[in-house]
């Protein structure tokens, strides 16, 4: 009898562990840049590396209004045109002397830059290079173009299908063996000019500062976790490891994308009323179970 009871408990624990693993598996997704995506094209590792003590996720523009001085806002891979309220919040954020870090290549980054009166432009077309990290012309290696600047950037970084930037003070540029692949055939054709192109620029905007990185893909798991891309991580840390508060935009970013169970978990986590209802239901269920056990 006692042995059967022990087997029952062991089976229960094992079942719970199996359910946990299943939940872990189902709670991920395969959406581009999603923070809930533990696959190669997600940003789960980057987000898990952020310092929780000074990182604030921004789900509404009003959150930025209370930002302290010396804050940084990360805007990674925006997916839609910004609303007037969002632009007003970004502008006010910059006016306080803070830093807006935009990482975007083929999203709606230009609309945001125009909205905050920045002169920087993200050029269309994939930047390609013979000077590259992997066997693909889109895996461009970019080099530091400014020494002893106010921002410390590594000597070189590997990018993954970046765009090229125009205007602003270049902090990192591709090498002279680069070109913009206008027709997207991954080859250098006549009419496609070779030369250096900025991929990381900085622009002073009033009291604030706008920094644009033309490739959010350095944050995806398959780039972020590679041993050979330590410089990429240094570059990211140069902006995320700042002394002030770090805000991460989750209003207009592909990193906030969720689907399936991960979306449900995300909604539960971020909606206080649902959390309260679930807690109440859980307490009711526990009370009912306890009562049953007593009888």
């Amino acid at each position, binding site marked *: 009898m006692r*042995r*059967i009871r022990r*087997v*029952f408990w062991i*089976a229960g624990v*094992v079942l719970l562990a*199996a359910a946990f*693993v299943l939940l*872990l*598996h189902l709670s*991920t997704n395969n959406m*581009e*840049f999603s923070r809930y995506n*533990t*696959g*190669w*094209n997600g940003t789960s590792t980057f987000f898990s590396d952020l310092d929780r003590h000074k990182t604030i996720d921004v789900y509404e*523009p*009003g959150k*930025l*209004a*209370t930002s302290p001085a010396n804050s940084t806002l990360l805007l990674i891979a925006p997916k839609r045109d910004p609303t007037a*309220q969002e632009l*007003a*919040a970004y*502008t*006010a954020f910059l*006016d306080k002397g803070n830093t807006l870090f935009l990482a975007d290549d*083929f999203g709606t980054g230009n609309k945001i830059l125009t909205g905050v009166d920045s002169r920087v432009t993200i050029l269309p077309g994939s930047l390609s290079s*013979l*000077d*590259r990290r*992997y*066997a693909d*012309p*889109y895996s461009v290696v970019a080099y530091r173009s400014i020494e002893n600047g106010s921002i410390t950037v590594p000597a070189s970084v590997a990018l*993954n*299908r970046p765009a090229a930037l125009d205007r602003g003070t270049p902090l990192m540029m591709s*090498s*002279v063996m680069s070109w913009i692949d206008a027709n997207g055939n*991954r*080859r*250098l*054709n*006549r009419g496609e*000019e070779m*030369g*250096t*192109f900025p991929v990381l620029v900085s622009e002073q905007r009033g*009291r604030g500062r706008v920094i644009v990185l033309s490739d*959010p*893909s350095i944050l995806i798991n*398959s*780039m972020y976790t*590679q041993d050979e*891309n330590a410089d990429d991580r240094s570059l990211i840390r140069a902006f995320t490891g700042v002394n002030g508060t770090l805000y991460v935009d989750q209003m207009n970013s592909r990193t906030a994308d969720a689907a399936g169970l991960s979306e449900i978990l995300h909604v539960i986590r971020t909606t206080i*009323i649902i959390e309260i*209802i679930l807690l*109440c239901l859980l307490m*009711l269920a526990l009370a009912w179970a306890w009562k049953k056990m007593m009888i």
Partner: protein
Amino acid sequence: MKRKTRYAVLVILIVVIIIALAPFIVKPLLYTLDKESFPARFHNNADALRQQYQNSTSDISPQVQDVIDFSGPVSLNIRIHNAKQARIEMERFAKSQGSLKNLVVKLDMSESEIRELEQDTALQREMLDSLLNTSASLDMLQSLEVQYREQNNEDMLTTVRLQGEELRKKVKGMGGQYRNITERVVDNSKKFGLNTTKNEESQKYVDEIIKEIENPIETPETAVDITLTPGEDRTSLFLRPDTGRYRDIIEYQGISLTLQGNTTLRSDGKPITIYFNEIPVSTVITDTYGYYNVRIPIEHAAIGANNVYARSQTTRSINRTLTTIPVNSTTSMSVTKPYQNGTVICSGSIMANVPVKDASFQLAWDETNVLVTKTDSSGKFKRTIQLPPGRHTIIAKFTADGYPLYPSESNLLTVDVSVIPGVDMDYRFIALVLTGIVLLALFIGVTVWYIRRITRRRKTHITDLLRSIIPGMRKDKNLPASELDPDLFEPVVDEQIPDDSQKSGDDTLISWYTRLLKKYGLSEASRIVYQQIASRVAGDLRIRRHQSLTAREMARTCKGKPYCGTFARFITAYERIRYGGLSSVKDQSVFETAMEITDEQTGGEKN
């Protein structure tokens, strides 16, 4: 299959699954690399890319094949204007990609051509800088010219004008030189297919600067009669009083005389202008006797001494001093609640005993945004500003520049602009609190309902149980517990024993047990006694369906009562008699002792 075996098989299966999943728990990818390398719009899978051998000639060549296959001269348009930097880049590239020995990128330019292009570009940049500096110097000379003209300083005015002319001549020469160099750079660049847009744009920019320098915008000259010398007393000026505060009325009066040979005539109908700190504030016409008189309140004036004089077209009075005494100002402001689009109306006034009219002041919000605006003729203001969502502070600041007043500012006001259009921040909070209250009430209500339902069901069950035990028990559905408790200790009617052996009203449990023992033996007597005591315990502990529980389950269920320990010992003795085979005298003695104590502790004596 035995139950034990079933469990064991289940455990083994699950353990095997867990072991199989273990390598993926940290990074739960259950797919192969092939499946993971699906095409993505924004990037490629670096895990897949690093599997491929890279940077071989066969890998690079196809990417530049289009250029190599071209039958004409191979020319790569190097999009860089700094040939030196290009050379450094090339060297760095060659170092980093050591395996690319066969790749040759050839610039279709000779060394001398590269050098010439470099020199021209450097000269071009130098000239542009010089032009910009000259333009700035001219702007400064222009402002000096205005200043000296106002001071009637003819010598300095001439010097400044000559310097300006020199600079303009220099610029004219530079313009032509820049144009020549730019044309040369553009020609050379076009020859090698370089992009010349920026050069051409710079030429346009330079042309605009030169045009602006060569044709300066004329500044309007105020007609100053420099031949007039103050103090000839041909126009007199008196102030009454010569001291005052803001908005005090000052009377300006005097007489205008015209010299005609040796005769001095009173000039009638002559316009006299009053100048207050070099600014004309009023013009008045002399009467038939040459007198003029005007009353002007003190408005824009410096604190302390202010220079005042009167002048006609041909005469000028001596300078008089009007002394102002500063007074305190008060700035007040109120702000409306924000509208749906975040606009708020700021209204208020600036007072200095009297309203400060047409006064410039700053409306500042969040310390960083400043709107400079003015009060109306009654010293009041009303301005609309649009604020982004969030908490903002607004303040009105009157610096009192140009007024004989002390500065002041309003109270710092705080405005909350809701992120949800149309919902005020306070309403949101109230809505949240109300929702919380409703949820809490709902939770409490459901809990109370559930507990009452359970309690009612148990009461019904106990009543049914008692009804089955006690014949003739009243069928009161709402029987209170206080009335139920004594009845619960009534003996259970056992249908298996004849009526003459049933418990009578005078019987105690012990005497009844003695009767039963004699008639049915120890085992049966103990069973009937157990039933009686178990029903008492079940009634006291509100245990439903206690008859379906075994004696051991009853003992385990009994918790929190002082008799539970005794009851457990009673059950142990009872089980030994019922299920332990032949019972010894000792077992019977133990059972009876336990029975007596349990009977006593469960309230048997009172029955």
